[in-house]
């Protein structure tokens, strides 16, 4: 559904559903997520119109302002003349025209329905009359979920550039309703539409709301708190009279003392407090933009969850009910470490996705007769750790490639040795204490038992584990009905005594008689399967492929001396060449380009005719032209559905193009 209208907003980078982007206004560009200034005409100067929302400048001086849009959208009962409303708005020339809606107090199903009817009628009218302009539309929370959903659906079908979330005040204290409403809106509207959450929203909520796809906030709360003589702080606000020292290093807190502030005339104090409050909120947003650039938004959200039970509940509900929504926009890999500090990390989308892929895309190497189950290590990949070096020394003793090693970790679950380098198995960090909580045991045992079920009946399972690892494995054994032999651990798992117990157990139970030696190729195929789907490994790495390492130690796969794929340790992914992509022709991760050849180094969203819905940001993707020929390779910047539906922004950063 791409029309000719130029997009006004461009997603630059995703971090989960949260995104950093640019709004292209007439005279400037604004970075999102951002704070816009609620223009109260008695606080700022010149306007005769009631409320105009302006871009927040670094100073409060009006000359830096730009009209973004008008929110005094008239009550349709009082001003039923839509043409007049439209004309009034056009004379102000805001960047967005806003569909008028008035206010709405929820009463009965019937009153809500008739209110929504008027809203939808007005929305269609605006789209029809001024569809060429950029349009904003209010979308209302309603406790009647059928009406609410229908409203969202209809508005998103009409299609707007910005959606203003209204009546949030009703649900700010109710995390379940808040999550469901915001996600519902974000899921159904066009991915490159902006979402604006107006009103009294504390900056502590910003990271959560941004992570759910909100792009814009405003300064209403800052004004209200300043009027009440309050300064905004991390988790709340404090009246100036209750403080002993000013709480931060902003220019206001630096320049004034408490007593100086108290003595000020109230109007002057209001402006000083307002400035602090706005500076505070913008600094929170700057931090969040930095987090998105670096891929640490999720960590910020988990941190902020500790500000209040509401926020903690918000994240839990989001993780529990909306994995698909989060996962679709979560990058396949990122530079840096995935921190899993507390229970709020157990279900983060990267981790959940790993467990899901192990269960869906991993099949044990055929011919395996014996599996040794080992605990994880702090050092990644595991095989570089001291403990694993020792384990392997014992295991290799029975023959190279004859015994399958798998590792148990929380919260990843089960990691086959061949996949220890994929993202995020080699890229996560947890506080290792050996104490597991019930939920960790639950998660790990589910993952382990799914693996057990894939093994041949006769496969011998030997677990060299203690503490929570042992408990999780025991539970998995019960769940799957597979018998597991537990070695005796005395002291340290990697201590000499324990190791000799492991050796004895292997001598006694390992089935090496019919075991086939597992080759390097077998292992690498599993990594390819993990990345592209079952069967991709055999296609990409035929038996005659050469495996080499480059100077950095990265694995290279060559075919007829030509590079097919290169494993990138930093991202834990295979990077394909065009040559490699050709052999993966039917394995998904395709994009259909709306043309014959691509010029430049990027593929932009408007050029994407269709795309594989399983594409995620940072995936390696194959680009086909309109005559179904492979023309380029690249790294995606969006999810498949998103690039298909967006009108603006980079869809793929090209890594290689076909030369004619």
């Amino acid at each position, binding site marked *: 559904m791409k029309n000719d209208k130029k997009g006004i907003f461009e997603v630059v980078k995703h971090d989960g559903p949260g995104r950093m982007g640019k709004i292209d206004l007439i005279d400037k560009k604004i970075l999102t997520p951002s704070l816009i200034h609620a223009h109260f005409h*008695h606080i700022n100067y010149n306007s005769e119109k009631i409320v105009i929302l302006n871009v927040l400048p670094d100073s409060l001086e009006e000359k830096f302002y730009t009209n973004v849009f008008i*929110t005094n959208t008239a009550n349709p009962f009082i001003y039923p003349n839509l043409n007049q409303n439209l004309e009034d708005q056009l004379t102000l020339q805001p960047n967005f025209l806003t569909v008028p809606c008035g*206010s709405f*107090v929820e009463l009965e199903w019937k009153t809500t329905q008739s209110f929504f009817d008027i809203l939808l009628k007005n929305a269609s009218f605006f789209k029809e009359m001024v569809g060429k302009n950029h349009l904003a539309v209010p979308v209302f929370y309603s406790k009647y979920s059928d009406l609410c959903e229908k409203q969202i659906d209809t508005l998103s079908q009409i299609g707007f550039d910005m959606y203003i979330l209204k009546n949030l*005040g009703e649900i700010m204290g109710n995390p379940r309703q808040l999550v469901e409403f915001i996600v519902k809106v974000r899921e159904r509207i066009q991915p490159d539409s902006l979402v604006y959450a107006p*009103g009294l929203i504390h900056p502590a909520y910003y990271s959560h709301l941004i992570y759910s796809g909100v792009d814009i906030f405003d300064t*209403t709360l800052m004004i209200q708190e300043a009027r009440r003589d309050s300064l905004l702080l991390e988790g709340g606000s404090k009246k100036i009279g209750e403080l002993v020292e000013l709480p931060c290093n902003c220019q206001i807190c630096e320049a004034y003392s408490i007593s100086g502030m108290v003595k000020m005339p109230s109007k002057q104090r209001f402006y000083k407090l307002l400035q602090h409050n706005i500076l505070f909120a913008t600094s929170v947003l700057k931090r969040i933009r930095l987090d998105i650039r670096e891929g640490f938004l999720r960590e910020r959200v988990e941190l902020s969850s500790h500000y209040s039970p509401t926020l903690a509940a918000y994240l839990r509900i989001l993780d529990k009910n909306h994995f698909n929504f989060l996962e679709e926009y979560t990058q396949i890999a990122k530079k840096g470490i995935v921190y899993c500090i507390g229970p709020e990390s157990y279900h983060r989308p990267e981790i959940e996705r790993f467990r899901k892929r192990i269960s869906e895309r991993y099949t044990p190497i055929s011919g395996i007769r014996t599996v040794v189950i080992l605990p994880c290590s702090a050092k990644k990949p595991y095989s570089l750790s001291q403990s694993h070096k020792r384990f392997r020394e014992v295991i290799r003793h029975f023959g190279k490639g004859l015994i399958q090693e798998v590792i148990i970790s929380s919260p990843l679950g089960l990691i086959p040795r061949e996949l220890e380098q994929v993202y995020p198995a080699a890229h996560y960090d947890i506080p290792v204490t050996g104490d597991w909580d019930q939920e960790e045991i639950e998660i790990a045992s589910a993952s382990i038992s799914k693996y057990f079920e894939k093994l041949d009946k006769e496969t011998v399972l030997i677990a060299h584990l203690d503490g929570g690892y042992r408990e999780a494995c025991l539970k998995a054994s019960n769940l799957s009905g597979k018998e597991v032999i537990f070695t005796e651990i005395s002291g340290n798992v990697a201590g000499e005594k324990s190791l000799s117990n492991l050796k004895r157990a292997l001598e006694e139970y390992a089935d090496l008689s019919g075991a086939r030696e597992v080759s390097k190729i077998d292992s690498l195929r599993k990594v390819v399967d993990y990345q592209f789907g079952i069967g991709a490994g055999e296609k990409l790495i035929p038996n005659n492929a050469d495996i080499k390492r480059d100077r950095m130690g990265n694995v290279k796969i060559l075919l007829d001396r030509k590079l097919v794929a290169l494993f990138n340790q930093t991202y834990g992914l295979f990077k394909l060449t065009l040559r490699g992509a050709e052999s993966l022709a039917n394995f998904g991760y395709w994009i259909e380009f709306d043309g014959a050849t691509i010029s430049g180094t990027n593929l932009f969203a408007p050029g994407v005719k269709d795309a594989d819905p399983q594409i995620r940001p940072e995936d390696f993707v194959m680009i086909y032209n309109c005559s179904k020929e492979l023309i380029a390779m690249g790294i995606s910047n969006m999810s498949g559905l998103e690039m298909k539906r967006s009108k603006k922004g980079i869809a793929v950063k090209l890594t290689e193009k076909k030369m004619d």
Partner: protein
Amino acid sequence: MIEVNDSELADKIIEIRRKNLNKFRKDFKEKPVKYWLEKDRFLNKIGTSLVVILATRGCNWALSSGGGCSMCGYIYDSPVTIPDSESLINQFDLAYKASIPVRVPLAIKIFTSGSFFDEREVPKLAREAILKRIVMDKRVEELIVETRPEYITHEILRECREILGEIHFEIAIGLETSNDNIRHNYINKGFELKDFERAVSIAKNTGVSVKSYLLIKPPFLREREAIIDSTISAIDSFKMGVNSVSFNPCTVHKGTLVEHLWKLGNYRPPWLWSIIEILKNTSEKLNNKIRIICSLVGTGSKKGPHNCGKCDARIREQLNEFTLTQNPEVLSNVECECKQEWLDYCEAEFIWNQITNE
């Protein structure tokens, strides 16, 4: 006149009404609901009014299947047993005694919390008897009675006019707003502007004055919208030939839809600043061409029109002063810190769509 109510609100109002009618209504005690004397604005001077609220059967609109108005709880003042003509005359006589010490000029205002001209409430016999008593008193210069427009006929007004002779006779009609949409969808008033206009023209033809009651801040309206609505309604009233407008800032009555909204945090009675702004606007625009009255009830409480609490009493005095003197200057030197907060509130309401009850 809309007999069968098709307002979206009606169901909710009827539901609340049904629940409370038996709960709140009391037995008849052979006296008016209330009566008192007050200093008041006459056509061109200041005098004293005797205000009588007769206990009658109650407003027919509130008792009907239409449900009554969203902000009105006066129906609960009407007794369970229906007072007859004799009892109504006795009620009036009882209240009238209170006016004996008053010197000229005297005005009498008769309210029923319904319609004085609805003969189910005030039978013809009682009406005529009361009017005849009033005309006997030479102190009385003005008589004001309240009624819905549908009960106003040439016949009744001519009759009254004949009995009353020289007395300035004014009928007060609760127009509430000149906007049909607001009156229909937010107030559930049950009549339209054209019904009011018809009543005004009958009054003009029979030499009777009309006062329009205007509701400041009906439910569902935002503060700024309410200011605009009331200002426009006053000007419209003037254009229709009304002689006085009386602003009634909305208060939260027990057992009403407004109370339901108020409890949910979805209604705040108007700020006194808004009332000041409306009075300033209208007196500037109408420039002493008609009488502008503001009758305050429950000022300063959370359920009535209020500001921050510190300035409420002071501002109420000034508002009353304006009503008596009709001089807008008395409103110009009112100040309080909460004025900024009110300005914020008016703006923030548009953005947040959420009301704080404080």
